[in-house]
């Protein structure tokens, strides 16, 4: 969707580092090194030529020579997947992989998305981000995060399930999680990881080149250290320059137009991805950010609706509650949803959750009698008649004559008497 310069299929292919090649092993001038640093395994050839900081023809030639020397390999351009979206971390890139979710597998689509998302970000996240912990996390938290991710991604959890391409992804994710844990668990390697994550000044520190002579030591560790330095350099390369070139502005505009078009076609995933690309190319434009926020909220609205549909469909109340709560996450201001969740939690006997939801309903819309009465009901069930009375009082201040207020008042008083 972005390229009108596609002259051959090579331009649609994605250059990536050949396994084991490290940036320091590729002789390059600073300008060439800049182009090298753009190679992240998800930007196609044509894009690299455009963002490589040199005339496109020159970049094309350089990439070709690196390819010939075996530093690079080519991955096929993956059709629907949006390479630009992969510039982003976190949950956002899940849309990019949406096309690959396969409902025929023995995995919930949520889980598939989670796996795709995690897998897509594997190479970009630093070890702390990978484990979802703060840089300052202590050894205990490192281990806890590792165990939590193991519970989620260890291949044994999906033994014999029909997994399709997800089996390989899981293996990859789990291996990476283990790598992160092993490095952060050991104070010495952790110190090195931390040193490598510092934003600047590390380029000059040369990693020891891997060679057969070191075989007797611990090549695995060494390889992963080298790889880590490579990764941190790649992360650096995503910092955008301070001023935006006119070419970038133009590119950003095009992406935003594509986003608007996708929006018209109600293809929200693509719209979000394009809007994000627009922001990536020109972060100074507030309109792009506003547009992205609008698209995002639409995506959330749709997701919440899908979750609600599912919640209606499931027979198990506990599961329905889980789905409802997820929907609330996407639609935090929806008073109806909170009230429903509260009633459902009460039916399940989970009074604490019922209270949380009733309170948030009452906070969103305190002038609604039903919200106050809901609070009163939960409090009454909890045995806190004093607070229940206060809620009924607030309800009666809103409408003193409402019969449901009187009825609730009676129930509270009866309960208080024992």
């Amino acid at each position: 969707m972005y390229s009108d310069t596609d002259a051959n299929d090579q331009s649609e292919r994605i250059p990536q580092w050949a396994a084991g090649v490290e940036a320091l092993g590729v002789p390059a001038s600073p300008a060439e090194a800049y182009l090298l640093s753009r190679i992240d395994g998800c930007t196609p050839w044509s894009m690299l030529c455009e963002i490589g900081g040199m005339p496109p023809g020159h970049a094309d030639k350089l990439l070709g020579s690196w390819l010939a020397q075996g530093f690079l390999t080519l991955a096929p351009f993956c059709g629907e997947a949006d390479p630009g979206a992969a510039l982003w971390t976190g949950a956002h890139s899940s849309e990019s992989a949406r096309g690959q979710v396969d409902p025929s597998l023995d995995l919930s689509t949520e889980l598939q998305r989670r796996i795709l998302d995690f897998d897509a970000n594997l190479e970009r996240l630093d070890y702390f981000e990978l484990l979802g912990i703060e840089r300052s996390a202590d050894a205990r938290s490192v281990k806890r995060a590792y165990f939590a991710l193991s519970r989620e991604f260890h291949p044994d959890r999906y033994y014999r399930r029909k997994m399709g391409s997800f089996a390989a992804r899981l293996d990859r994710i789990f291996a990476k999680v283990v790598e992160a844990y092993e490095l952060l668990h050991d104070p010495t390697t952790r110190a090195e990881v931390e040193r490598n994550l510092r934003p600047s000044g590390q380029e000059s520190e040369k990693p020891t080149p891997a060679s057969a002579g070191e075989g007797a030591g611990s090549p695995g560790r060494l390889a992963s250290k080298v790889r880590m330095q490579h990764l941190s350099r790649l992360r650096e390369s995503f910092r955008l320059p301070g001023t935006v070139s006119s070419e970038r502005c133009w590119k950003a505009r095009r992406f935003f137009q594509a986003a608007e078009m996708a929006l018209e076609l109600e293809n929200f995933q693509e719209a979000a991805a394009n809007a994000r690309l627009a922001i990536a190319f020109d972060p100074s434009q507030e309109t792009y950010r506003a547009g992205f926020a609008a698209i995002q909220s639409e995506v959330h609205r749709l997701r919440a609706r899908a979750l609600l549909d599912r919640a209606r469909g499931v027979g198990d109340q506990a599961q329905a509650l889980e789905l409802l709560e997820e929907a609330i996450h996407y639609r935090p201001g929806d008073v109806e949803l909170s009230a429903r969740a509260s009633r459902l939690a009460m039916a399940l006997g989970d009074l604490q959750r019922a209270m949380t939801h009733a309170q948030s309903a009452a906070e969103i819309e305190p002038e609604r009698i039903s919200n106050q009465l809901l609070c009163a009901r939960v409090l009454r069930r909890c045995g806190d008649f004093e607070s229940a009375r206060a809620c009924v009082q607030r309800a009666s201040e809103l409408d003193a004559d409402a019969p449901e207020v009187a009825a609730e008042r009676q129930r509270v008083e009866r309960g208080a008497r024992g």
Partner: protein
Amino acid sequence: MSHVIGIDLGTTNSCVAVMEAGRPVVVPNAGGYKTSPSMFAVSNDGKRLVGHIAKRQAITNAERTVHAAKRLIGRRFEAKEIQHSAAMLPYEIVEGPEGDARIQLEDRVFSCTEISAIILREMKRVAEEYLGEPVNEAVITVPAYFNDTQRQCTRDAGRIAGMEVLRIINEPTAAALAYGLGRSGDECIAVYDLGGGTFDISILELSGGVVEVLATAGNTFLGGEDFDRKLVEHVLSEYEKCAGVDLSNDLMALQRIKDAAENVKCDLSAASVAEINLPFIANSDEGPLHLTLQVERETLETLSFDIVRGTLDSVARCVRDAGLAPGDIDHVVMVGGQTRMPLVRKMVGDFFGKPPHGGVNPDEAIATGAAIQGNVLVAGEADLLLLDVTPLSLGIATFDGGFAPLIDCNTTVPAQRSHVFTTNRDDQASVKIRVLQGESARAKDNHLLGEFVLSSIPPARKGEPEIEVSFEIDASGIVNVSARDRRSGSARAITVQTTGTLGEDELNRLVIEHGGCELPGEV
């Protein structure tokens, strides 16, 4: 859904467990025993016997009764451990077609895999009788220090016995699962597993249902039978001293003494003195001879002190590998029958500075853990998750006969690692990749898992080509190795589906042969 059984295939005794309604149940055999002797015999009239029956006739049929086949499984005939055992075992060990150790019973040669299969089949039958339905899937345990060939042989044995082996897991790890079931707190435990023929020590961390193996060490040729052997040697020498008769070449007498020694050893765990009483042990010119001997606990402890101290060296190494000190261990779990011995409990307790935990049954915990892991796999049991490690380093041989490990021991599986190697001659066109497993720095002291040749490397000066070797090991411990020349792109890969000691043809033949045969049956 059919049940997955957990089998502890022990050197001297085997045990089977199954999960029922979320709880593990150790299945008793027809005789009411929860463990069965890992014994196989061909009787005088040609019948095949297994378990208790085999043990009962062992004295009269010593030459045709196989015990402790697990000590031989997956080992080469010329290995010194085998040669050492051959001198002590009443049955005959011969060399198989692949150079493996096999057992000759009359005119039939049995591979150790086949013997194990017969025992596994018996355990399967015990479980089937209890459950009232066929069983086709199992998790089988092996000593943590078993190498890949020994594991593969055990897998093959399961296949011959008519079961799909879902997973081979380490015995101490299984015991930790049994211990960890239903515990949600954070703790570090040591599992000290001294069985009939093997010794293992593992340090594990339990947290919120995740069981992580921190380190593992052991010795596959050390166990309760060594205690027995010491005692047998003691009895033989005492008897020679007082009666002047050497019984070490009398197979029947030897078997009786061995049996008696085992009983006395067990008795001495509770009593301070026990008696060996074997009437009519031999004949002399003056008439029949009897053997009567008092054995004191102290004598046994003196005899076996060195063995127990030897295990503590492994324990110390394992604790160190785990990055801990003995005092960091919250509980010491003892499994394997030999850990009932007071000396073992005391010395291990002294090492860790706390008495051993008494909460698991030393004979049943391993089978229980295997059944739990089977359930975790097939029933998607989410309460427990085992993070297992590879017990031995994996790597390749280098030109100078050295060993370059790519996946270190105690690495959590699944794992993948790669490394770049190069040539050592000008214009070298091919390299041989030899995949090894072990801890020695010299290639020849490690165990060869497989080899392949990467050819068509373009002519270059020595040291210039970059040959990338990648190792992958999956959760079941299957190893994949690939090698690639970076310049030419020439690549070769093998799955080190470790060949057991049986060729594919022989294995298939045995699967069919054992498929229809009910035990005990005709040879």
